[in-house]
């Protein structure tokens, strides 16, 4: 059997998507933990949210239920709102400190 044939005969079940989503979610989480640029951290959050979206859609298909897809809309809106506010905060911070502000530099509050 050719490679493509193997893949083709391989029924793509929702499990594939879900495993993919789990990996994507973890990548996002790790990214949040290791990156110091706040904007990139936000992007990692977006990765996580996207992973969840994939999960919803996969479940939606697996369960033959429409709500999984509907929910993704809410996630999108929430993501948009979050990003708007998050970026606004970052802008406000960068107004104050012009020289290189990574997440690690924001540590007045500690202990």
């Amino acid at each position, binding site marked *: 059997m050719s490679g*493509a044939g193997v*893949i*083709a005969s391989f*029924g793509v079940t*929702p499990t*594939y*998507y*879900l*495993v*993919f989503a789990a*990996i*994507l*979610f*973890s*990548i*996002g*989480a*790790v990214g949040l*933990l*290791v*990156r*110091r*640029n706040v*904007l990139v951290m*936000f992007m*990692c959050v*977006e*990765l996580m949210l996207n992973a969840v*979206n994939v999960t919803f859609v*996969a*479940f939606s*298909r697996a*369960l*033959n*239920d*429409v*709500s999984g*897809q*509907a929910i*993704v*809309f*809410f996630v*999108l*809106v929430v993501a*948009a*709102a979050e*990003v*708007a*506010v998050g*970026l*606004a905060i970052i*802008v*406000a911070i*960068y107004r*104050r*400190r012009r020289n*290189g*502000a990574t997440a*690690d530099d924001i540590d*007045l509050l500690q202990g």
Partner: protein
Amino acid sequence: MSIIPEAVLFFIFAGLALAAALGVVLMRNPVHSALSLVSVLISIAVLFVIQNAQLLAAVQVIVYAGAIVVLFLFVIMLLGVDRSETLSDPVRGQRPAAILLGLVTAAGLIALGWNHWATGALSSRGVLAPARSTNIKAVAESLFTSFLWPFEMTAVLLVIAVIGGVVLARRSHLPADVELRDLEEQDQ
């Protein structure tokens, strides 16, 4: 869909998405990260399409890739924070710990779901359209019936986002001395 087997599409775009996701995390320059993010989003949009979620795919591209990432890029440029990060992590142990946790999370989730992710009841809030047709109507209907309440509240959410953005990012009318005082403190 019929042209290319779903499996092929899935593996291509899923692989692409994962690679791009790794790119988001690994790219030292935030601009590159943002571009990687776009790749992820678009790959996922394709995956949506594969699964008959055409509306979502469209929204994914328009809202996410079109609006959100652009916003990211805009802010990056605005603030000039496009400098690359140093390679080494100043916080010792953070990186290995994060990677370990990530691996455990992924492995754990996958192991838990394994072959039996979806164990739920079928079609509790309405069935999907059969394959090769769109779900737009079904999704829209559920949004305006089952999900009316959260749907309305997302409107509030957007208002909040607007107000929040304005409140935080608008130039202030504050007297200069306040800002000066504040700057002193940061330099401490």
